[in-house]
């Protein structure tokens, strides 16, 4: 059997699910053997993939998240998945994929560059007992309500109404921008070319950051992170924090890990009253096929892609993680089978609802910026410096924007003369 490697950026419970997929694939046929290696998280995986590629030791398949799409696009290091599948004689219904996914992971012609695998979006999770305790019916949908319940929870003696890691830019910044229809960058969030400039220091996010700061000062939001010894997710499942925001992907893990007596539900991210909700942007990652491997390995990769695209596999994956089904038909069939109607899967359909709330617009089809990981880090720093050190939000964001632009310019220079595909 031909062996080939697959590096992925998930760990913990989700990482084990990936291993399950790999085992299932290996068991399903005898021609190929996939070797799946966890690189802990998306950033590490990107970094290690680059190192390996430079050393000509790259895996055949690597899992790159939304943030790394442009890095891959210009790397010249990958084979577009569409070509790969065609060459190996697989028929894939590319237009069956979620438009959000397609707009993120496809080139400007709409040709899919990477195989969609684990897609998600950011959600907010509530401890329903705590909500009940403060007399809130249903789940909050606006930031006003969130503030309100948080304040009441505090008064009711909850130490940590909302757990938040200010380094979590994806849910607390990126998705906020998108659903509030705020541009992260010019040229349609960078889709228009490498010369885009960030603009997140203007508009609603300045107020939002001011809001976060106020919440922290009032003790309604509490810093929860690795550095404090307990992440926001842990604090939530342990019942220590009553609200948290994270990926829908964690829905499965929460169900397993929630401490006894902790009851919770998931909801779409809140918006400010008076704003029109825009669709949220797709998260998670897709599978990229790297250059420099043998035909046999590519055949194996194609077979693997085909395997995960089978309806049974897709169903298994979405069932056992919180990731959404990546195809329209997949979603439809799960929905019609009543999958989302009862616990423990109830609520996951809201992710799809969030993603499809409106048709993707200029500001909500995705973000196409080079070295976006570094930009995220700048924003994270801005958020932390506001929240921890009391820096003025506008100042902090201006600085982050200026630095982000430098990162983008450097990227542009590095790939001088190249175009986004």
């Amino acid at each position, binding site marked *: 059997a031909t062996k080939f490697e697959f590096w992925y950026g998930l760990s913990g419970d989700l990482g084990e699910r990936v291993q399950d997929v790999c085992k299932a694939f290996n068991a399903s046929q005898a021609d190929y053997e996939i070797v799946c290696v966890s690189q802990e998280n998306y*950033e590490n995986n*990107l*970094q290690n993939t*680059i*190192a390996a*590629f*430079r050393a000509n030791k790259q895996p055949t398949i690597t899992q790159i998240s939304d943030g790394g799409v442009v*890095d891959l696009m210009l*790397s*010249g*290091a990958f084979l577009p998945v569409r070509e790969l599948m065609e060459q190996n004689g697989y028929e894939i219904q590319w237009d069956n994929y979620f438009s959000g996914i397609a707009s993120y992971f496809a080139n400007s012609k709409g040709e899919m560059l990477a195989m969609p695998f684990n897609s998600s979006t950011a959600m907010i999770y509530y401890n329903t007992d705590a909500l009940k305790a403060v007399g809130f019916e249903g789940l909050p949908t606006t930031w006003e309500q969130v503030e309100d319940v948080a304040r009441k929870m505090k008064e009711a003696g909850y130490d940590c109404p909302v757990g938040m890691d200010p*380094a979590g830019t994806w849910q607390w910044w990126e998705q906020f921008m998108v659903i509030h229809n705020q541009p992260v960058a010019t040229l349609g969030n960078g889709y228009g070319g490498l010369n885009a400039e960030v603009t997140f220091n203007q508009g609603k996010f300045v107020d939002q950051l001011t809001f976060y700061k106020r919440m922290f000062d009032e003790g309604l939001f509490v*810093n929860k*992170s*690795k*550095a*404090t*010894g*307990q992440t926001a997710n842990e604090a939530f499942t342990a019942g220590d924090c009553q609200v948290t925001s994270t990926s829908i992907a964690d829905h499965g893990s929460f169900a397993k890990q929630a401490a006894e007596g902790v009851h919770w539900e998931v909801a779409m991210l809140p918006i400010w009253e008076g704003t029109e909700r825009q669709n949220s942007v797709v998260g998670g990652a897709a599978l990229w096929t790297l250059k420099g491997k043998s035909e046999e390995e590519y055949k194996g990769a194609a077979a693997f892609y085909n395997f995960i695209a089978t309806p049974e596999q897709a169903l298994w994956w979405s069932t056992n993680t919180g990731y959404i089904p990546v195809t329209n038909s997949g979603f439809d069939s799960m929905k019609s089978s009543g999958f989302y109607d009862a616990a423990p899967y109830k609520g996951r359909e809201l992710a799809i609802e969030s993603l499809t709330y409106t048709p993707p617009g200029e500001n909500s089809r995705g973000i196409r910026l080079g*070295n976006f*990981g*570094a930009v995220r*880090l700048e924003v994270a*720093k801005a958020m*932390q*410096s506001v*929240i*921890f*050190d009391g820096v003025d939000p506008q100042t902090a964001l201006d600085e982050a924007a200026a630095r982000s632009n*430098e*990162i983008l310019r*450097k990227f542009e*220079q*590095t*790939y*001088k003369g190249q175009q986004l595909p």
Partner: protein
Amino acid sequence: MERRAVYRNKVLPWLLIGPQLILVLVFFYWPTSQALYWAFTLEQPWGGGNAWAGFDNFLYIFRDNRYWATVLRSAFYALAATGLSMLVALTLASFVDRALKGTKLFQSVFIWPYAIAAPAAGVAFRFIFSPEAGLIGGINTIWPGIWDPATNAAHALAMVIICHAWLGIGYNFVFFLAALQMIPKSLSEAGAMDGARPFQRMMDLQLPLIAPTAFFLLIMNIISSFTDSFGLIDTMTEGGPIGQTEVMVYKIYIDGFKGLDYSGAAAQSIILMLLVISLTFVQFKWVERRVHYN
């Protein structure tokens, strides 16, 4: 090198020194030249090619106040950790030097920190200093939030520096003790005959005489503040909060390997190398002067 070289042979010395020379060329000179090249170009992360950038990378670094903050922080870190560590080590060494009964036991234990990997010490001290557990965290149960290295940069930096200083105690102690023991006993006795009391002898005789060792240690500690700090920071704070515990090496790592800016990192690397070389050069000059004494 004043000694006469005893053997003359055209081939043998090359065979002997060859392997090391090759390793040094492959792992030192070639890479350094390569990095120098990167520093003057914009290297594509995936290695597809690069664009000539002249001094841009350096100018970019020099214009970046965050870089200078890192340099200052590194200097502070180095001096604080070094000073703390050397002070403790010197104190211990000068008491051990009295060679009372049982000192041997203390002496051997004082060396232990040398054996410990920085990341291991980092993990241990992280627990000790953890705000919600362990030893220091206890203070938070009395005054909540008074100790919080997760968000307070000063706390985080202090925690790392203390750990670093602890790690250096063993090494510094060994050198100080050796230096003190190398001072002829008769010098102390001459001091006693001259009427000086122990503390005064320490200040007037011992300290000036171990000054060269102290200076050597200062340099070695500063260099180690570039090396050991990585493992500490990576396990204790990962440079946080808000990058406020990043030191030069850590920033190189973050910018280069996390931020995928190989060229900027290469430029920083070159600067760091020059810095270390000049420190060592100063040390050599000092050593030359020290020869004077004896």
